[in-house]
């Protein structure tokens, strides 16, 4: 009788232990399933939102070039485009805070209508170009500058074809080159020794027919002082194929404006002149390339040079996610987008509630 009782107690103990461990085991297995399902659902919702931004034109549909209207729905796609991920050059340009016609994050956030989802949009070229002035040879009438150029993507070298321009006052010198599979190349440019001040060395690189990037390197020509920093004399704001130049000081004068792409460069004609603000018409070029816009002028006897690019990328727009834990529940999506026939990389980060 005693043995039977002990056996029964032991089996009861084993049964209870079995039930408890089973409960713990089932919870351990099922809990990640449920969490994963919730996480998958969140990812899909955020991905749809990111695609909505890149595939929808927003409202008004031409809010990028129509500066008079108020944004009521946010989207970056080019209106009327039949292909997906084709973004409007002006909508992207207005995301850049350096542009005089930039839209505020508050307006965009309100227009998107997702109050519980902070977001950040980054648009940049697919690969990077970096430039270094390695040497110069000064002659009596001209100076030869030797530049080292490297092209890389995510710190890995890539080969690219290069079109280079040196701009000083009204002088424009162009030269073609390429970088090797090691991502290294070099170019010599020659400038006449007329005047002194800031010159620009512009590189537009193409890794294939549609994937392009650029770099602009300011350097001092016939001068021992440093080249002027960007925005020191004027700010350049391209929008709707019109360039607006705002001079910082009335005493300075902008004398030349030009636009460079991979295949061509053109002088720009002024369409409206005022004391501090000038407008130039930009040509609608079909070249799949970033368009580097340059303005040169005089500060007394010293030449200065200002530049921007159209579309104004790289651009980072939106929440900076710098708060503690801000990125814990956020999702990042990478897309390739086309702006003015050239391919760029776009990252959309959407935060949690």
């Amino acid at each position, binding site marked *: 009788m005693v*043995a039977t009782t002990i056996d029964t107690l032991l089996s009861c103990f*084993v049964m209870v232990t079995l039930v408890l461990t089973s409960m713990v085991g089932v919870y351990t297995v099922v809990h990640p399933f449920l969490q994963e399902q919730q996480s998958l659902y969140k990812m899909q919702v955020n991905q749809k939102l990111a695609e909505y931004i890149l595939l929808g034109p927003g409202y008004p549909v031409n809010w990028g070039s129509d500066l008079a209207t108020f944004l009521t729905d946010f989207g970056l796609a080019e209106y009327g485009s039949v292909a997906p991920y084709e973004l409007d050059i002006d909508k992207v340009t207005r995301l850049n805070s350096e542009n005089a016609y930039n839209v505020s994050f508050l307006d965009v956030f309100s227009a998107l209508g997702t109050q519980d989802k902070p977001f950040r949009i980054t648009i940049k070229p697919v690969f990077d170009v970096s430039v270094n002035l390695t040497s110069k040879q000064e002659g009596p009438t001209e100076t030869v500058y030797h530049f080292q150029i490297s092209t890389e993507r*995510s710190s890995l070298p890539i080969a690219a074809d290069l079109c280079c321009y040196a701009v000083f006052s009204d002088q424009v010198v162009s030269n073609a080159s390429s970088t090797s599979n090691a991502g290294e190349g070099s170019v010599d440019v020659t400038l006449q020794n007329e005047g002194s001040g800031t010159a620009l060395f512009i590189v537009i690189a193409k890794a294939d027919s549609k994937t392009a990037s650029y770099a602009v390197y300011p350097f001092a020509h016939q001068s021992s002082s440093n080249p002027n920093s960007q925005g020191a004399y004027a700010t350049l704001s391209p929008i709707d194929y019109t360039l607006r130049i705002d001079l910082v000081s009335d005493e300075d004068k902008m004398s030349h404006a030009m636009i460079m792409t991979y295949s061509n460069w053109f002088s720009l004609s002024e369409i409206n002149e005022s004391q501090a603000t000038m407008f130039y018409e930009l040509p609608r070029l079909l070249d799949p390339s970033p368009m580097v816009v340059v303005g040169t002028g005089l500060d007394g006897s010293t030449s200065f040079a200002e530049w921007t690019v159209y579309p104004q990328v790289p651009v980072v727009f939106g929440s900076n996610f710098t708060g503690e834990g801000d990125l814990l529940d956020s999702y990042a999506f990478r897309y390739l987008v*086309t702006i003015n026939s050239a391919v760029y990389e776009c990252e959309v980060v959407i935060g949690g509630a």
Partner: protein
Amino acid sequence: MLMDNRGQIRVLEAFFATAVVFGSLVLTGPAYVSYQNRSSNGVLYSLGLNALIELDRGGELGALIAQSNWTEISSRLSLLLPVGVSFNATVYNEDHEIANSSPMTDGVLEGGNVVSVRYMVVDTATLGFYEISLQLAYVK
């Protein structure tokens, strides 16, 4: 004696049941792993489709296939896909025969979770239809 045996059988039954429950928990492991991969599969699929859409913009992909320029297709895919994603692309013609004479790949798709993207391409010059199968995986 009979009563004693009955108690031992209960204990054995309990251990048996424990083994069955834990066995079933172990068996659900692979199902969870495959479930967990669904989100990364979606991301890879989206990356692959996006790269093919960009490559095909303006009908360039169809033209490159018609020219049998497999090296250029491979190099462009390598540029458009993020670093850390390896790929293997195969082009099929209208008779569903492999059209590419040389492999279009930038790595070995092994051991990882492989996602396949199928994309229809038309060469606008010859009106030839092709199907491109792009397999993607994260580099381990």
